[in-house]
């Protein structure tokens, strides 16, 4: 697009001679004048001398005129209509109030555009005016859009936007003469820390001035949680540190509590006393997750009346709690081969951190020592330390043939702690023997509540028997020692005969995996191995002390067997809820979303033999953890890979749990759950600050000017003049080819000759 055309002219030489030849001629003519002047030095009459030199000069000029062949060249020209860009910040911070009690910053820009509209119209005589929004991608925007479509950009990158704008400057009519930038300056990209030397240099090299218009009032009342620092994952039973900055503006002298919650459960509160008008305080929390999985944690500060932004009073994050090594506490009632092979297995497993305590002697044992302290390597049984102070640091507690009544060895006073440990997510294993399951020994009735079996009050049944893998055992991951149920069944059948079992009955809800085929308790086969969930924890009972034969005796004929290793590996993974050992898995995808974004979940269903469950019907519920209300239910059918994906509509800010269940025909494939956070804020809304300094520095670096709202009219902001270019053909009109110029030359030379003769020079 161009401006109005016009005509321009200029003098040019039309001589065909090259420039150097013309220069020689000029020199020759000048020398001719010079020689004439030199020859008249002796002339006493000034008048004569002047007349003769004047005539020679006129003749020389006429000669030059004829030689240079001057002409007039006429040109048709036009002034290019360059661009002026009006940039409007469309990131989320522009949705914040422009000032106390005012409308949004975007609305303030819309008002301003209305007022400067005539001025922009006037500019269109000389420029193409483009009004563009950035979020940060550039797109046309109008006053109406600013009023109706909320600003939603997630990142303010002023330098990036100007770079992108410069990329559209391809010269000619696309050349930029200047930019008028409407923004709050809340940059959260390269200029977040302020104007750097490098950024300033880059801005200066843009090639066009950028004038800024500050949107929003820099004085406001706001409580904001900013710069949250926490890892994406943590190890269970290891302390996790969370740091956040509490920025309080306009509330001097107030106390502001900051609360850390996990899905509605308060983990800690820190009170901050604010003294200044704009004060930032580092707040730290430390907590110890006690369960693996993914959880939504929320930090919050109260909302005060008149706050500019209420959404930044809360910050949510998703923490994945994983296991480092499985920390196992092995408490052994007496050394035995059962203990020896379990210890050997656990010690060689790199994923297990084993802490063990064995009762090597009791008060009735006679060690034949005069000074037991010096002669024995024994240490006191540190019951208080392991069952009280450090109990929660263990993932699994194994009692192996443990049931001492000796006051020095009895754990009666820690029963409740242990039961609570399981109920709160710990794992317990009880292994049989002559001291276990109340077999004529002390029983621990409170701790027994956590176990899946009840002792029947009779002595152990001693005598050889073959283990029987129950139907549940053929499907359960703990006893699935081989890929298929049939193969697992065969592997269990090949084990050496057992020598005895503690007599127990399975509690309602317990799953019996192994039983005694020839021994009935309450009319059912006596359980040899059973497990269940107690509260949030899990427990397993193994009613025999000869499981060591599965590790050792089984090799007597040279047949390889990994059953013992696989069984205990499976058991530990099941006990600690290894996610890979569940037949149904659900994961929020992604684990945290911005407001307005759909919540997705991916479900993987497997059969009991861990093959993908194709065609399984999956139901996924999304519930708010605060009020436990189900906010959405989605159903899907798994594909051949056993996977399905569901999506829920965008949800309000908060923490949610995703619960999935699946069925394959009439058979339930299990349940699983995960957490998802609809995050209160991205980086945009954490800080309501208006960056006056940054906008000023940006304008200065580019040669623009800095303004602030309100604008009553378009300011006279710096713009580069558009260049002028030829738009038509030139036409030459010779000036030299007239007889008058030749006549002048002849007349001047002739008159000079006549006068020279008269004055006696010829």
């Amino acid at each position: 697009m161009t401006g109005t055309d016009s005509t321009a002219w200029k003098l040019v030489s039309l001589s065909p001679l090259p420039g150097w030849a013309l220069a020689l001629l000029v020199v020759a003519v000048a020398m001719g004048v010079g020689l004439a002047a030199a020859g008249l030095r002796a002339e006493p009459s000034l008048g004569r001398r002047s007349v003769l030199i004047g005539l020679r000069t006129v003749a020389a000029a006429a000669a030059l005129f004829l030689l240079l062949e001057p002409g007039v060249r006429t040109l048709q020209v036009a002034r290019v209509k360059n661009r002026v860009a009006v940039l409007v910040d469309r990131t989320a911070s522009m949705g914040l109030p422009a000032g106390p009690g005012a409308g949004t910053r975007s609305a303030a820009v819309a008002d301003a555009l209305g007022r400067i509209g005539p001025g922009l119209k006037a500019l269109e005589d000389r420029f193409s005016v483009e009004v563009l929004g950035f979020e940060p991608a550039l797109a046309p925007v109008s006053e109406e859009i600013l009023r109706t479509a909320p600003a939603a950009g997630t990142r303010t990158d002023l330098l990036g936007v100007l770079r992108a704008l410069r990329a559209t400057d391809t010269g000619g009519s696309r050349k930029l003469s200047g930019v008028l930038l409407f923004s709050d300056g809340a940059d959260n990209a390269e200029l977040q820390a302020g104007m750097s030397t490098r950024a300033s240099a880059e801005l200066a090299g843009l090639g066009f001035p950028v004038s800024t218009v500050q949107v929003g009032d820099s004085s406001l009342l706001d409580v904001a949680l900013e710069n949250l620092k926490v890892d994406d994952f943590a190890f269970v039973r290891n302390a996790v540190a969370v740091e956040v900055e509490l920025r309080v503006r306009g509330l001097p002298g107030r106390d502001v509590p900051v609360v850390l919650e996990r899905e509605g459960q308060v983990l800690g509160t820190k009170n901050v006393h604010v003294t200044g008008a704009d004060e930032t305080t580092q707040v730290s929390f430390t907590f110890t997750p006690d369960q693996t999985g993914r959880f939504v944690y929320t930090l919050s500060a109260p909302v005060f009346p008149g706050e500019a932004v209420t959404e930044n009073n809360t910050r949510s994050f998703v923490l994945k709690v994983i296991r480092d090594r499985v920390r196992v506490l092995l408490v052994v009632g007496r050394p035995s081969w059962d203990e020896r092979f379990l210890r050997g297995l656990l010690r060689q497993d790199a994923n297990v951190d084993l802490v063990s305590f064995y009762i090597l002697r009791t008060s009735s044992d006679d060690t034949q020592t005069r000074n037991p302290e010096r002669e024995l390597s024994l240490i006191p049984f540190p019951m208080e330390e392991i069952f009280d102070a450090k109990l929660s640091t263990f993932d699994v507690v194994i009692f192996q043939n443990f049931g001492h009544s000796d006051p020095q060895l009895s754990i009666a006073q820690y029963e409740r702690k242990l039961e609570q440990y399981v109920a709160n997510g710990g794992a317990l294993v009880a292994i049989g023997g002559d001291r276990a399951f109340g077999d004529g020994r002390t029983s621990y009735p409170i701790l027994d509540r956590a176990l899946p079996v009840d002792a029947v009050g009779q002595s152990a049944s001693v005598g050889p028997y073959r283990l029987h893998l129950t139907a549940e055992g053929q499907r359960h991951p703990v006893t699935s020692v081989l890929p298929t149920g049939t193969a697992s069944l065969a592997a269990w059948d090949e084990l050496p005969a057992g020598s005895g079992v503690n007599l127990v009955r399975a509690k309602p809800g317990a799953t019996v995996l192994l039983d005694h085929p020839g021994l009935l308790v309450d009319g059912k086969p006596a359980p040899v191995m059973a497990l269940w969930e107690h509260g949030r924890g899990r427990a397993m009972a193994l009613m025999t002390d000869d499981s060591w034969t599965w590790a050792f005796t089984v090799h007597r004929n040279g047949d390889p067997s990994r059953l013992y290793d696989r069984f205990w590996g499976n058991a530990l993974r099941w006990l600690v809820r290894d996610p890979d050992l569940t037949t149904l898995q659900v994961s929020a995808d992604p684990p945290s979303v911005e407001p307005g974004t759909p919540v997705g979940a991916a479900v993987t269903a497997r059969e009991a033999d861990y093959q993908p469950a194709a065609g399984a019907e999956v139901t996924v519920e999304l519930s708010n953890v605060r009020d436990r209300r189900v906010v959405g239910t989605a159903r899907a059918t798994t594909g051949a890979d056993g996977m399905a994906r569901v999506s829920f509509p965008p949800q309000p800010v908060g923490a949610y749990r995703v619960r999935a269940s699946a069925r394959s025909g009439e058979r339930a494939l299990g349940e699983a759950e995960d957490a998802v956070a609809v995050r209160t804020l991205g980086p945009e809304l954490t800080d309501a600050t208006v960056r006056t300094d940054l906008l000023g520095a940006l304008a200065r670096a580019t040669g623009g000017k800095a303004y602030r709202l309100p604008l009553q009219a378009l300011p006279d902001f710096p713009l580069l003049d558009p260049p002028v270019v030829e738009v038509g053909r030139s036409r030459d009109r010779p000036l030299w080819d007239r007889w008058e110029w030749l006549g002048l030359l002849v007349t001047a030379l002739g008159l000079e000759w006549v006068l020279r003769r008269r004055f006696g020079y010829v």
Partner: protein
Amino acid sequence: MVSLQHPMPGPALPRRALLAALSSLLLPRRAQAFGDGSRFVPVVAQHGGHWNARLSGLRRLAWELQRRTSVEVVAEARPLALNARLFDFPFVYFGGEGDFPPLAPAELETLRRYLTYGGFVLADANDGSSGTGFDAAFRREMARLLPASPLQPLPSTHVVFKSFYLLDSAPGRLFTHPQLQAALIGGRAAVLYSQNDLAGAWARDEGGDYAFEVVPGGEAQRELAVRTGINICMYALCLDYKDDAVHLPLILKKRR
């Protein structure tokens, strides 16, 4: 130089009948584990030589183990051929006097598998030999049995010297070799070998008296030999339990 501790001497020597009566009174004081297999049974390996010279010593060791520790035992020495039956008993005593013929390949294979999967062998030169007799034969067989795990001296810092009693050495009926030899499999001492006739110090005769003089330390040395036997059994049962970090500070303090 051999150093000896001087613990309290053992009780007066009972007659065999008295011992049997005591055993019947003492051992049942505890509930029984599920059959013999779950208890400590001192199995004695039968080989082509004079393998049964110390059966009473093994009985005595089991008795002492029951008396002094919480371990449940079968207080009898159970002779077994080197066949698959061994896999019912993870502890085997392999002793003898004088040379014995080479083990059959099947016996070697069984024994190799036994040790590989967690079995334990306590070897004991009842003749106190060194380079001859039982020692030469046993070393010959060990070279065939575990060529990649040769016998090597066990340092006094090994856990076997603190698995129950705190010991510095391993005397037996004799005290010509203060340290034990061991063949290690994966860091575990699968075979412990004494040239001091450990079981000779434990053995009783038909009359219930100790069967052999203990030299040069007398009854104090006998007590140490019993303690060594107890520690070896504890090591077979508990492996490196006493090397756990929780024990180390206290044990170091006791050893000072």
